[in-house]
């Protein structure tokens, strides 16, 4: 019953998988994000970019999903994972949860491409 839309893209230069959820990431839509992140990590991309520029709102179920993906990404074989495009509302929840330092966060997708 969820209407989450998650865009997934692969680029060659530099090689990366980009997961870009759209709209609200809350308890009703985060299962689809979890699914998309798992598939992306399963295919062992050179880097994983989670582009949040089209996410207007995220709650702790979204955070939990990202923490879980980051832990997988950090375990061997390590996959560089970078978040980008956080708006003020989304950034606020990372700060409240003191998770803005656990994640690598870049301003834009281009920056994330360079960082990862």
């Amino acid at each position, binding site marked *: 019953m*969820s209407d989450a839309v998650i865009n997934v893209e692969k680029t060659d230069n530099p090689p990366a998988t980009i997961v870009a959820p759209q709209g609200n990431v809350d308890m009703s839509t985060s299962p689809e994000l979890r699914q998309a992140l798992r598939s992306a990590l399963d295919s062992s991309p050179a880097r994983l970019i989670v582009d949040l520029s089209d996410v207007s709102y995220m709650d*702790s179920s979204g955070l*939990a999903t990202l923490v*879980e993906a980051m832990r997988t990404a950090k375990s061997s074989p390590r996959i560089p994972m970078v978040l980008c495009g956080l708006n003020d*509302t989304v950034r606020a*929840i990372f700060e409240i*949860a*003191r998770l803005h330092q656990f994640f690598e966060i870049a301003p834009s997708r281009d920056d994330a491409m360079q960082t990862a």
Partner: protein
Amino acid sequence: MSDQTSNATTTHRAHDPAHVRVELLSNPIYLSGARELVGAVAKRLGFDDLACSKIALAVDEALCNVIRHGYDRAEDRPIWISLWPLTEDGGKGIRIVIEDEAKQVDPEAMKGRELDDIKPGGLGVHIIKEVMDTVEYEKRETLGMRVTMLKHAPAQPVPEVTRHASQGARA
């Protein structure tokens, strides 16, 4: 700021009817509606956009906890959200009460994990206490739980009439 769980209800006369009261099913598809309502009401009660989205986040987290822990994800149980403007001492703000008919738990058990212990989950209660000025969990008289949360709005720099005039003066 996040540990003042004491006087949340003291200034609240129990029989003032809520200005807005929502009864919704414990189905996650209604979370976005609840958030938007609370955010828009907070806006009219004197909070700026970022504060409104944080207050909506706190309500979302409390609702998710009721759905997850109270009702074990059953999607057809009732949850009530009640909203009052806070007008004590000439200040502005919002009082939010969320109630359920789920199992009763010790209010002391409503605790988030330590933040340095990073793992998925365990953030909801922490977020609620961080965003709101006071948060008080209690058992309802008959069945279910109640959480009462207050948030005071920062004082407005310029009073209404003067501001309208000064807008005019910019012309």
